[in-house]
C-alpha cells in the first residue's frame, strides 16, 4: 500500500512537471510553427497545429533577406560588453563592499541599489542629452555603458551576498601565506563565488541581449540596430512578414539559451563545503 502511494505521488509530481513544461514550451513551439506557416495560412485559412517541416529550407533565405546576422552580431556585442564590464566592476565593488571598511560604505550601497528603483524610461531623455554631449549616440559602446549602469548593481548585490558567506579566515590564511589583496580576490574569493558569478553573468547577458529601449532611442543607423530593435521594425503599418519575424525571433532566443547552458554548470552550491570546521 505504501509502495503504491509512493508511486502515485511520483506520478502526480511528474504529471504536474510535464504540465508546466508544456505551458512554458508552447510559445516556443508556436513560434517555430509560425515560422514555417505561409502568409495564406496565417492571414486566411488559419495555421495548422503541426509544423510544415517541408518548408524549413525556405527559412535561411527569409532570414538573410532581413539581415539577421548583422542584427545578432550587434546584440552579441552589447550583451558581451555588458557582461564583461559588469563582471569586472561588480566583482571589485562587491569585494570592497563586503570586506573593506570605508566612509560612505552604506551610502555607496544605497546609491547602487537606488538605480534599480528608477524605471529606465525615466532616464531616456537625460541619458539622450548626456550621450549627445559625449558623442555616444549611434554607438554600440554607448549602449554597453548605459546597460551596464543598470545591470551592474544587480551583479554587485548577488556577488556581495556570496562573498559575505566566505569565512574571512580563508583570506587571512592566504594573507599569512603571502598573498596580496589582489591575489586574495583573484585566487581565493573569485573561485569560491563562481556560482554567483555565473548567475550574475546570466542576468547581465540577458539584460544586454534583450536591450531595446535605449537602442530604439539612441541608435538611428539601421546597421547598428540590435536584433530586438530589428525585429520590432519588421512590424509594418500595412503588412507584417509574421513567419519571418517568428523565424528571426526563434534565432534570437537561441544564443541566450546557449549562454545559459554554458554557465549553468557553474551554478552549483556547496563549493565552500569543507573550508572550515564541521
Amino acid at each position: 500500500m505504501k509502495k503504491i502511494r509512493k508511486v502515485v505521488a511520483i506520478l502526480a509530481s511528474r504529471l504536474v512537471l510535464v504540465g508546466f513544461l508544456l505551458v512554458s514550451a508552447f510559445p516556443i513551439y508556436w513560434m517555430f510553427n509560425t515560422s514555417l506557416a505561409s502568409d495564406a495560412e496565417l492571414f486566411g485559412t488559419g495555421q495548422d497545429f503541426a509544423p510544415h517541416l517541408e518548408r524549413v529550407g525556405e527559412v535561411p533565405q527569409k532570414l538573410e533577406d532581413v539581415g539577421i546576422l548583422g542584427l545578432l552580431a550587434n546584440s552579441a556585442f552589447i550583451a558581451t560588453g555588458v557582461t564583461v564590464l559588469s563582471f569586472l566592476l561588480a566583482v571589485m565593488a562587491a569585494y570592497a563592499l563586503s570586506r573593506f571598511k570605508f566612509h560612505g560604505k552604506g551610502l555607496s550601497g544605497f546609491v547602487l541599489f537606488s538605480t534599480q528603483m528608477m524605471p529606465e524610461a525615466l532616464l531616456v531623455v537625460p541619458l539622450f542629452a548626456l550621450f549627445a554631449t559625449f558623442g555616444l549616440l549611434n554607438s554600440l559602446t554607448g549602449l554597453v555603458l548605459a546597460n551596464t549602469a543598470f545591470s551592474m548593481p544587480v551583479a554587485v548585490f548577488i556577488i556581495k551576498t556570496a562573498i559575505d558567506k566566505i569565512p574571512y579566515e580563508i583570506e587571512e590564511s592566504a594573507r599569512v601565506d603571502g598573498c596580496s589583496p589582489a591575489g586574495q580576490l583573484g585566487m581565493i574569493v573569485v573561485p569560491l563565488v563562481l556560482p554567483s558569478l555565473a548567475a550574475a553573468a546570466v542576468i547581465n547577458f540577458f539584460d544586454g541581449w534583450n536591450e531595446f529601449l535605449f537602442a530604439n532611442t539612441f541608435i538611428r543607423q539601421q546597421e547598428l540596430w540590435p536584433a530586438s530593435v530589428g525585429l520590432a521594425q519588421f512590424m509594418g503599418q500595412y503588412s507584417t512578414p509574421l513567419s519571418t519575424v517568428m523565424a528571426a525571433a526563434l534565432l534570437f532566443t537561441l544564443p541566450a539559451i546557449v549562454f545559459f547552458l554554458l554557465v549553468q554548470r557553474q551554478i552549483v552550491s556547496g563549493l565552500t563545503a569543507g573550508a572550515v570546521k564541521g
Partner: protein
Amino acid sequence: MPHISFQDVTKKFGKSTVIHGFSAEIEDGEFLVLLGPSGCGKSKMLRVIAGLADMSSGAIEFDGTVINGLEPKERKIAFVFQSYALYPHMSVYDNIAFPLIMDRFKSWYHVPIINSIARRIIRNTAEVKTKVMEVAQMLELEPMLSRRPRTLSGGQRQRVAVARALVRDPDLYLLDEPLSNLDAKLRTQMRSEITDLYKKVKKSFIYVTHDQVEAMTMATKMIVMNDGEIRQIGTPDEVYHSPADTFVAKFIGSPPMNIVEVTASGTGADLPNGEKIALGGKAPKTGAVLLGVRPEHVRVVDANKGVSAVVESVENLGAESILSLTFGAPKGSAEGKGSKILAKVGGSSIARAGDTVGIEFEPGTFRWFDADSQSALN
C-alpha cells in the same frame, strides 16, 4: 627562532580596551600557551602577533627588531586557524603548496590566464614537489594529496592546516585553538602529534587555548589571561602550584583550588566556628586572609580527627572520587552554611552524602592570598 619581546601591547576597539599593556619576554624555542577563558583577549593577541590585527599602542620585537606594521609574511610566521581555513577549491597538495607558490609569485602573475599558468608551473617544480611531499610524509597525508578538503575528516583537515604551516619553515608557529573542533579522542591524539612536531621542528610555538589540559600538557611556558590582562606568566608547574592570584588558582586545575576565608594567627588559621586549621608553619600574614589548597591536598579522615566537615555530595570517577564538603559553619547556623571545599581522594570514597567526617590539610601545600587584592602572599 626569534626571542620575542612584548612591550606594553594594548589593543582598543573604540573606547573599550581588549588587551591591557601586555608585556612579556619569550625565549627562543619556547612552547608558549596563552590560556584564558573565552573573550579574555588571547586570540586577539595572537592576531596582533601575526600582524592580522593592528595594536593600538606598544611594540613587539623579534630578536630586538620592532615588527609593528610588518605584513604577516614578513614576520616569518605560520598561523593555524581554529577553523582550519583551508582553500576549499584546491586539492590538499595545492593547499600545502600555496605558501611556496606565493613565495615565488611575481606581481604580473596576477594577469588572468598567466596566473593559472604560472601557478601550475610553480606547483610542479621539483623544489615545491619535494617540500610538499616531505611535509605530507611527516603528517601522513600522502594518500590524500589529490583530495579536496570537503572530503576529509576533521582530524585530516587539521593535519592539512598544520602541513600548510610547516611547509613554509617559519620561525614562529601561531596556533589558535587548533583542536577545539575535534572530538575528545582525536584531540588527545592531535595534542601529542603537535607536541611531537614541536620537538621535531625545534621552533617557537605560541598556542592559544581555553583548555587547561592542553596548556598543562603542551606548554613549556604559560601566560594566563583574563579580561585582556596577564594574570600570570610561568611554567605549567609554577602556575599550578603557585598561582599568582585567586583567578589563576580557580582557573587552573580540575577541580579547581579551594579558597577558604580564614583568620590567620601565628601557626594556625581560625574558622568562624572556632575550629583551627593546623598550618604546620607560619602564615605570611595575620588577620583575614584567603587560604588556597588543592583538592588533592585535602585528606578525609575520621570524624574525631582534623576539622569537622559534612559531606554534601560524592562524585565517584572510578580511579578517584571528588567529595564536596562543608565545614567551619558557626554553631546554630543553617544547614549547608559554612565554607565549601572539594577533596580528591583515591579510589571509591567510603564516605556518603550526609556523613560527618574530619578533614586535614597536607602541611606545606597552602597558598595564601590577600583578602582584598586577591593576590598571592607567599
